[in-house]
């Protein structure tokens, strides 16, 4: 069965979605990812969807779910590499993926994660 690879990148996890998502694959990904976050004590999750030509409301919701699950496990999620056509479709569908951070590419996403993590560290020191 297909699996979405999850790579470890320092204290972050890189998820590259390269095939069309369907229900079962999405459930497996959620399982794998939450397990991996706990196992590796990851602080950030990068989801690269640059290979996806089509994103529907289902995938939109799945991305939202993953972001929510990760947040509970104290990991920040950034979705990177969305294609222009996909972005236009999502906006036309009225889905603006609230609560999900986005970045242009993996580099920018990693920088954004560092930024967010540094800030959350600082604020936890203040507390």
């Amino acid at each position, binding site marked *: 069965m297909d699996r979405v690879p999850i790579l470890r990148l320092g204290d972050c996890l890189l998820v590259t979605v390269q095939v069309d998502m369907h229900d079962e694959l999405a459930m497996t990904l959620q399982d794998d990812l939450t397990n991996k976050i706990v196992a590796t004590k990851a602080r950030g999750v990068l989801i690269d969807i640059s290979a996806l030509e089509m994103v529907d409301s289902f995938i939109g919701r799945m991305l939202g779910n993953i972001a929510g699950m990760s947040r509970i496990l104290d990991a920040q999620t950034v979705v990177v590499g*969305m294609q222009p056509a996909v972005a*236009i479709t999502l906006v036309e569908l009225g889905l603006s993926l609230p609560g999900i951070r986005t970045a*242009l590419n993996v580099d920018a996403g990693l920088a954004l994660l560092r930024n967010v993590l540094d800030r959350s560290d600082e604020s936890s020191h203040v507390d």
Partner: protein
Amino acid sequence: MNRLASRLPAMVEQYQQEILTEWVKLQLEAGTWRAGRLQESQLRDESQRFLTLLVNNIQKGVQFDTRSAQWADIRDFLAELSRSRATQGFSPSQVATFVFSLKQPIFARLRANLLDEPEVLADASWETTLLLDSMGLYTTEVYQQARESVIARQQEELIELSTPVVELWPGILALPLIGTLDSERTQVVMETLLERLVATGSSIAVIDITGVPTVDTLVAQHLLKTVSAAQLMGADCIISGIRPQIAQTIVHLGIDLSAVATKASLSDAFALALKRRGLSVISSSAARG
């Protein structure tokens, strides 16, 4: 079946030269001929060709029908005439007058020859009127189509010309919008901006609406759509160039722009963009001192 079909064609053919001379004279008087735009010889030539075509076709029937094969050559002639006059800058009524002015010489011939048969005269007049009216209307229709195609082409060019995306600084794009934003243009603007974001790897886009004359709810919605699409790609948008009048309109319409950073001028927006990128501009003397 048709009495006219037997009288009019023969009559037009018989008096062709007289009708032509009178017709051209009438046209010159009516002002459809305008020095500089159309040569008198060309008008005479066109009139001659039209009358010949009419004489040939009228033998087979007097009901002008734009779809029937019988009138194909007259239709093509009229369409070509109408199109060329449209590009020469003639008005639609001047183009239609070309056909309508033919009525008077034909009526004159009919009256002179059918004086003792008033019923035939009335029928013939009526059918001539119908025939020439439908031809005149056809020229107007073609004229309209020619004009519309010109407008459509200009609209396309305008859309392509008016959506430049410029790089203000590495990582900072600007999109100066000029003219009214409709759905079609928004689509082009959105696509251009998103593609340039990917191509340049920029994280901030400044949308300058100084050149947008009015902002209504629809334009605002289009702007917000563009902003959300850019945000989905991971880029921040700043809207700049909001004139006082437009700020008032936006508030009166109850449009919520709080999700987007807005600035009054492009320079303010640029300063904010630099700040977000962690850059600052300092004067060189201050740097030395």
